[in-house]
Each structure stands twice: as structure tokens, then as C-alpha cells.
């Protein structure tokens, strides 16, 4: 061990900062008592900015008085509602409710929704077209599961919102991506907005959306689209930028106009990468399913949410699993489309049916099941009698585990709480706000230059000045502990997977599954086992944030040039030396990027864990949502975003430094 490194001026700065913070944190309460200066631990009420009421007033003005001249703001939101609502109603009728005429109890059914057989066949065909029969069977099995386990109706409502949200998200994202590819200032203007969109917790904009669009599926769809679109914008811009210059030149030399260039050269050449974006939109849409049900989306998300509220273990797990199953099916199909190669071209002398065998199959099945469904209800709706339920099984299993292992779980929980969670919590909540601002500024300035330092200090000041200091510190403590644990588990796993092909397969499958799960699903078993509280929140966050730590570590190890490792081997490194002296230093930038992503995911999950009773900024947002208090929601949301942005900039700056040191930048 090289002790000298620990007392270098560089390290002394960090030790000093930590020491001062620790001393101030442990003595702040005594200081306040001794000096009778309450401002030390609490931001003076008189200085607080009434941001909440400003924002709430602004929203009210928007809704009641704002006008664009030709039309008012309210008409504008109604217009958007209509654009989304019409196709959504059609999709929902086709998949779940059937087409009806008339209102309420006078409604007459004109046509039933697509039968369950037809939908399963459509999914199988999609799987076959995207890749092969294996995928087709997997997808078919997933949807059959939904029917057999009695989740069909809810699942179809959810599918209807996916069917609407995904195309809008994709088209909107592509359009913005094209704009920012074509016009440099659009890209410059969009980048910070996208950064903010991806760090603001979803809950924060649920509140204004609720305010603008009212409770219901439209508001839920708007929230989903806003949440799912940013990655598509990014992916589109990058995909277009990375089309090889020669291909663009070939297009120019062929005499393409600008429009031909875009639609005949750029977009088709970028199609595989664009499909990655589509996959992301689908996954994020499913991720939003439960959250969106808080502002009026029905379907599986609503089932999970209400089960969670009732503490109905079995029901929650069943509906949660149904979301997972649907996510797996849609994820695999869309991934397969992104790696799909164009079809072999068939002769032109074939008939329409021969050229489009799959479309024809689907058409025939839809028509046949429609006709058969008129006479045999089992063809139209999956027979109730044949459904299975695992609800009781989960209930029993949970009860058994709880009864048998109660003491063990309690012991684990106590150890974590008293030796890790509580001390860290005391440390963070004890930091006086004034020193917190200075410390954040100093740390950021040290890593990323004075500009970053000023930005960090200003953002921290915003948090203190809006009266959210303590809640923000609880957020940081929970996030910090969770990230620490997720990183401590994830990085070794990733290193293992990076060096060992078989480990990679298993770890990869495990991580893939974790990532397909919507964030809420983690909460159900954790709450069942450990009840509400910080410890449950921590476990849920760790599970959710594990994936990037593993992924980036594995990637970092795998991306090392084989020659570097050979050079280490011929120098006589042992395996341990090879790992510590060669692989880890070279993988450092990748490890730091993983840390960055882990922090981001942890923060986004943290807001969700407010549901299980944490007292952090997430709770603040959640309270705002239940009270429909726009100002409170946005202020708390911005605070979370600021924490995320400071962390992101600091870690990115560290990653950049380590890249520069390795000469990779």
C-alpha cells in the first residue's frame, strides 16, 4: 500500500473537507444551544423564497388567463388532449373494451375487441417477423400467460396506452432529433432541457400535468410520453450524426435534395440505432405504467398500486408479474427488430398473399375469430373457468417466510440500521446548511473548476432557501448508502462477468431481468418482508440501481485491449496483480461512468420509495401530488434534479480526468 498517496496535498484537501464537515455536523446542535443561534441548523424563515406560491400562481394564471392571441392556453391543452384521446379511444376499443355507440348504460356494442386468440397470434407473428420461431414462441407464451392468469383485461388496457404512447414518443423524439441534427442551436437549446428531464423525478411533473389535463388516461399518457421521449431525442441525434460521412457524400453525389437525403439516406441508414431508441421508449413507457396509474391510467399499473395500498401481497405480485411478462415480451421483440436484417427480396411475380404471408395470416385469424366469437364466447374472451391464480400461493409463501425467518430478518435489519443507516443519517442531517453550501461548492470546484463550484453552491442554496434542507439531506443519505451498497455488490459482479464468459451469461441474464422490471415491482416483496421504512427503501433502491454498476464494470474490463493484458502477463503479473495493476486502472473511466448511472437510477427510485414511508424529498413530491399542489411538487422535484445534476457533473468530471490521464480522451 502506498501510504504517501494518502497524505498528498490532493488527498489532504478531501480529508480536511470531510473532517470539518464531520466536526460541524456532530457539534451543530450544541453550537445552536450554546450560541442560541437557531439559524445554524435551520434556514431562517424570513429569508425563504416563496417559490411554491410563485409557481402555483403562475400555473393558475396559465390555466385561467394565459392566451396566445388566437387561442387561450386552456384551449391549447384541450387540443392536445383531443389529439391523444381520439387514437387512445380507438386503441382501447380494439384491444379491451370493444366498439360501442352511445353513452353509459345506453351504449350498444357494435363490435367486440380483438379476441384473445387474435392478439396472441399477432404477437407470435411479430416475434417471427422480428427474428425466429423461438422468439415467436416466447412472446406467444408471455401473452398466453396473461390470459391464463386472469390478467388479460387489465393487460389490454395497459397495452392500449403503450400502443398510443410509443408511436407518439418515437415520432416526437425523432422529429426533435432531426431538428437538433439539422440546426445546431436547437441541439444546444435541447441538451440542458433533456438533462433536466432525465433527472427530474417523474412525480414532479405529474403534478402540473394533473393540473393542466385533469385526472384520467390522457394526463397519464402525456406524463408517459414526456418521460419516455428524451432518450429517443438523444438516440435519434446520435444515430443521424454517426451515419458514415461517405454515405452522406454518396447521397449528395447522387443528387439528393435535402428531403431525399433525410428520408432516403440518413434515416434508413440509421434505422438499427433508431430501433434501440424505440426499445428504450417502450421500456420507459412500461416503467411508467404504475406511476401513471396515480393520475388516471387504468390497467395493470392500477392493479399493482391498489394492491400495494391494500397490502394485498398476492394480488400485487400477480399484477406486477403480468407487467414484467409484458415488458419481457415487448422488450425482446423490439430488440430483435433493432438487430433484424432486411428480408431477402422475393420475386415480383408472386401474388400479394405469397409476398405477405404473415399479414395474410393475421388478417385471416382476426376475421375467423371474430366470426367464431359471435357463436362461441370462449373464442372471444378467455374462459373465466380456465384461469389460474397464484395469489393464494404468494400469500402463503410470504406468510411462511415471514413467520419462519422473522427473527433473522429483524436481526439483519437492526444491524444495518444501527451500524450503517442511522450513523450516516445523523451525519448528513447534522450538517449546518451554510457549511453544506460551502462544502458542495468547494468539492465541485476542486473536481470540475470554479464554474462548476459556483453552480453547485447556487443549486445547494436553492435547496436551502426553499426550506427543504433536512429533506434533501435525508435524500442524500439514503441515496449515498444505497449507491455505496449497490456499487460494492455490482462492481465485483461486473468484474467477474467481464473476465468469465459463463459468469457473463448468468450475470447478464440476471441484470437484464432486473432492468425489465418496472421500478415499483421491487417494492412489493421488500415491503412484505421488511415492512415500511428506510431499510426497505434502501433494498429496493439497491436492486434497482445495481444494473449500471455491473454493466459498466463488465464493459470496462472487456474493453481493455488484449495487448495490455498480454503485456501484464509477460511482465510476470499474478492474477491478482493483473486485476489491480492493469485491469482496474484501465477500467477506471468506465467504473466512474457506472457510478454516475448508479447515482441517477438511485435518485429516480428514491422518489418512488416515498410510498414506503421515507421522509425525503420524494415524500415531499408525493404529498404535493396527493394535494395537487403544483408549486410544492415542482420545487421538490427541482431539488432532486439539482442534487442529481451536481452529482452527475462531479462524477463526469472525475471520469473525464481519468480518461485524460489514460490518454483515452
Amino acid at each position, binding site marked *: 500500500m502506498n501510504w504517501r498517496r494518502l497524505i498528498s496535498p490532493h488527498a489532504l484537501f478531501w480529508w480536511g473537507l470531510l473532517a470539518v464537515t464531520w466536526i460541524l455536523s456532530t457539534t451543530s446542535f450544541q453550537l445552536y444551544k450554546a450560541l442560541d443561534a437557531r439559524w445554524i441548523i435551520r434556514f431562517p424563515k424570513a429569508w425563504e423564497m416563496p417559490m411554491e406560491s410563485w409557481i402555483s400562481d403562475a400555473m393558475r394564471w396559465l390555466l385561467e388567463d394565459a392566451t396566445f392571441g388566437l387561442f387561450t392556453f386552456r384551449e391549447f391543452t384541450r387540443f392536445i388532449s383531443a389529439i391523444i384521446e381520439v387514437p387512445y379511444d380507438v386503441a382501447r376499443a380494439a384491444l379491451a373494451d370493444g366498439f360501442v355507440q352511445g353513452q353509459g348504460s345506453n351504449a350498444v356494442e357494435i363490435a367486440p375487441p380483438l379476441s384473445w386468440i387474435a392478439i396472441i397470434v399477432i404477437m407470435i407473428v411479430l416475434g417471427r417477423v422480428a427474428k425466429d420461431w423461438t422468439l415467436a414462441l416466447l412472446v406467444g407464451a408471455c401473452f398466453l400467460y396473461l390470459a391464463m392468469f386472469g390478467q388479460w383485461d387489465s393487460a389490454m388496457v395497459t397495452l392500449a396506452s403503450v400502443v398510443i404512447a410509443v408511436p407518439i414518443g418515437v415520432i416526437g423524439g425523432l422529429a426533435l432529433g432531426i431538428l437538433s441534427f439539422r440546426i445546431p442551436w436547437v441541439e444546444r437549446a435541447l441538451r440542458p432541457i433533456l438533462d433536466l428531464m432525465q433527472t427530474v423525478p417523474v412525480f414532479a411533473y405529474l403534478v402540473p400535468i394533473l393540473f393542466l389535463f385533469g385526472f384520467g388516461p390522457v394526463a397519464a399518457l402525456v406524463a408517459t410520453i414526456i418521460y419516455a421521449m428524451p432518450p429517443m431525442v438523444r438516440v435519434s441525434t446520435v444515430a443521424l450524426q454517426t451515419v458514415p460521412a*461517405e*454515405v452522406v457524400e454518396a447521397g449528395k*453525389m*447522387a*443528387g*439528393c435534395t435535402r428531403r431525399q437525403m433525410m428520408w432516403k439516406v440518413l434515416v434508413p441508414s440509421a434505422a438499427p440505432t433508431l430501433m434501440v431508441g424505440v426499445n428504450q421508449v417502450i421500456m420507459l413507457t412500461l416503467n411508467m405504467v404504475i406511476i401513471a396509474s396515480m393520475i388516471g391510467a387504468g390497467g395493470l399499473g392500477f392493479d399493482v398500486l391498489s394492491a400495494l395500498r391494500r397490502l394485498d401481497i398476492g394480488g400485487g405480485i400477480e399484477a406486477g408479474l403480468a407487467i414484467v411478462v409484458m415488458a419481457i415480451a415487448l422488450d425482446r421483440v423490439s430488440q430483435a427488430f433493432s438487430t433484424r436484417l432486411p428480408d431477402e427480396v422475393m420475386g415480383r411475380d408472386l401474388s400479394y398473399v405469397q409476398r405477405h404471408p404473415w399479414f395474410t395470416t393475421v388478417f385471416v385469424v382476426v376475421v375467423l375469430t371474430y366470426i367464431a366469437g359471435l357463436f362461441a364466447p370462449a373464442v372471444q374472451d378467455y374462459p373465466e373457468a380456465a384461469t389460474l391464480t397464484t395469489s393464494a400461493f404468494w400469500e402463503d409463501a410470504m406468510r411462511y417466510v415471514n413467520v419462519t425467518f422473522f427473527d433473522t430478518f429483524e436481526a439483519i435489519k437492526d444491524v444495518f440500521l444501527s451500524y450503517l443507516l442511522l450513523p450516516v443519517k445523523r451525519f448528513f442531517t447534522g450538517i449546518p446548511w451554510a457549511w453544506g453550501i460551502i462544502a458542495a461548492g468547494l468539492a465541485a470546484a476542486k473536481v470540475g473548476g470554479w464554474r462548476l463550484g459556483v453552480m453547485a453552491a447556487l443549486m445547494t442554496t436553492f435547496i436551502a432557501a426553499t426550506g427543504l434542507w433536512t429533506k434533501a439531506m435525508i435524500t442524500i443519505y439514503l441515496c449515498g448508502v444505497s449507491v455505496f451498497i449497490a456499487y460494492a455488490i455490482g462492481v465485483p459482479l461486473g468484474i467477474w462477468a467481464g473476465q468469465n464468459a459463463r459468469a457473463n451469461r448468468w450475470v447478464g441474464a440476471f441484470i437484464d431481468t432486473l432492468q425489465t422490471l418496472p421500478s415499483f415491482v421491487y417494492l412489493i416483496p421488500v415491503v412484505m418482508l421488511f415492512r415500511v421504512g428506510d431499510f426497505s427503501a434502501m433494498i429496493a433502491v439497491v436492486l434497482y440501481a445495481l444494473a449500471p454498476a455491473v454493466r459498466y464494470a463488465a464493459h470496462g474490463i472487456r474493453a481493455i485491449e488484449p495487448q495490455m493484458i498480454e503485456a501484464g502477463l509477460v511482465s510476470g503479473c499474478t492474477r491478482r496483480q493483473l486485476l489491480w495493476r492493469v485491469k482496474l486502472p484501465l477500467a477506471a473511466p468506465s467504473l466512474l461512468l457506472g457510478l454516475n448511472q448508479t447515482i441517477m437510477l438511485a435518485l429516480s427510485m428514491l422518489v418512488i420509495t416515498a410510498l414506503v414511508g421515507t421522509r425525503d424529498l420524494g415524500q415531499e413530491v408525493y404529498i404535493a401530488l396527493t394535494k395537487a399542489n403544483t408549486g410544492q411538487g415542482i420545487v421538490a422535484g427541482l431539488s432532486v434534479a439539482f442534487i442529481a445534476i451536481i452529482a452527475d457533473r462531479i462524477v463526469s468530471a472525475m471520469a473525464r480526468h481519468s480518461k485524460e490521464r489514460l490518454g483515452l480522451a
Partner: protein
Amino acid sequence: MERPLKMVCRNVWKLYGPDPAAFLRANPAPTNEQLREVGMIGAVRAANVQIGEGEIFVIMGLSGSGKSTLVRCLSRLIEPTGGEILFDGEDLLAMSEQELIQLRRKKIGMVFQNFALLPHLTVLQNVAFPLDVQGVPRATREARAHEMIETVGLKGRENYFPRQLSGGQQQRVGIARSLVVEPEIWFLDEPFSALDPLIRREMQDEFLRLQGLLKKTIVFITHDFDEAIRLADRIAVMKDGRIVQTATPEELVMNPATDYVAEFTHHIPRGKVLSLRSIMSPGTGDGPYAGDLKSTDRVADVADRIEAADHPHRVLDDSGTPIGTVDGRAVIDVLIGRRASE
């Protein structure tokens, strides 16, 4: 050299740096030092090129010499910072976007180093692409594309995708695509550099065969001096953005303008480049002579005859007038690389 001029480029500059246009206006002929002082990079400097109709004009240079930038200025894929480019006497740089699109659609074809085929289109669709862009009806453009595919020897692969073809085959598609509009001028940017040496040779032969059929005006970029010598009517050698010398392969070998050019000429098989005119002893005496040869004959082609004979051969010019003699010793000098002066 009496060909009518197809493309003329006069004093073309391409500078990279802060506001290069204003800088060039202030300093119409900046030196290396001046450029370095203001942090400009001179990718192309004062390029003068005249390309005759039906000529194979090769621009040769190592990587970073500015050859790719120059050809992109000629096709206006890159806007030159200054200078003049005439195509059929028309000012290329003054053309509007619409005119440029029309020009490219009808009169220019280009082949790229890494093929630049569209991955989502079949061979047939790739070749038909320039016609598709022009709005040519499907039947017509596909018929035309079929012809081109047959010409480049890929018949039967029309429905393959680029990824299913070897590098050489992909470049044949690139060639077919660039020729499908029957361009008047044909740009080839290192078309064979990404190919294996054996395939490269095969493609060079194919290229010469095609040119024999089509007689296009060609601007061919390469970093390979052997390739340049093999294909060119004339070669422009570039270094650091400047054209060092423009000459026929034979002139280049006989009279390299700088040491830099001479460096390239050392290792090439001179017998295949030089004609008898370059190595003969001027003036004829009384003989006896073993026979008559033309002054344009390549040394390598007639070496056996000259060397096997007991007497020197007479060298005749185009009109049949004897202008000099050549003997075995002169031929051996060339073949083993001994300099006349040594």
C-alpha cells in the same frame, strides 16, 4: 495533350481555422509560416489542375496530403475557401444548390473508399438509387441498373444486400452505382485501398477494361504510387496540401521535380513506365541495325528483342522517321535500375 479541357481548377485553397475566408482575402497567398502563426491548417493550397476530356487524371499523395480534400473541392462536397473551379467552362462554385443537384444527378459520378453503400437497399436498389432520386420510373431505372450490374460482372446478385458481398463485390456495386447515370466526369476516391492486394489488382484491370469501353473523364485518388503509375494518363503528386508536380508517369520517373517525388519513383519497375524515346541515344549512324522499333514502345515490352539481337535497334517516331538507337546495355540499365549518369 490536345484534349479539350473538362475541368479546370485555378488557385484553389481550402483552409481550416477561424474565419478562413477573411484571412485568405487579406493574404491571397499565405506562406506556411503565416498559416501557422494564426493557427490555420492549409488542407489544400494553391491547387491548379487541368483535366482533359477522356483523361485518367490521378491525384497521388500520402495520408494527410490533402488529396481527399482536393477531390471533395472539385465535386464541391467541401466548399473551397478560395479559387476557381470550372466544369465545361461553367463556374462550379457559383452554382446554386438546385443547379448543383442537377449537375450531380446528370453529369457526375463518384466512388468511395469504403464503398458507402446504403445498408438497407439491395444491390439492385443501390445501383438504381441515383435514378430513384431523380424520379425515374421504377421499370426504367431497374432495367438500367440491371445493365450496369451486368457490366461490372455482378449478374445474379441483384437481390443481395451489401453485407452479403465481399469487399471487391461491394466496390463493384459502388462503381455500378456511380456509372448508372452515365456521368461525364467520374471521381474515384481511393476506390481500391480498402481491398486485399490481389483483389486490388483484379479491380485495377477491371477499371481499365471499363474505361476502355466508356472513355470517361476520370479523377482518381490514390496513396499507392504503383497504382497511380499503372492507371494514370497524368499524375498530380501532392504533399502538405500542395501539388508538387503534375506530369505523365514517364516524365515523373525521368524528371522528378523534387526529392520527395524521386523517393516514390525509386522502387517502381521502370521498364513498364519508360518508353524507348526516354532511353534511346539520339541520332542514327549507318548501322548495322537489328530492326526498327517505335519510340512509344515500353521498354519492358521490347526488352527481349533488343537484348537478344547482336546489333542495336533503330527507334522511329510517329511519322516513321528514325530519331535514335537503342541497344541491350541501355535496356539492362533500365531493368536493373542503374542510372544513366552512374
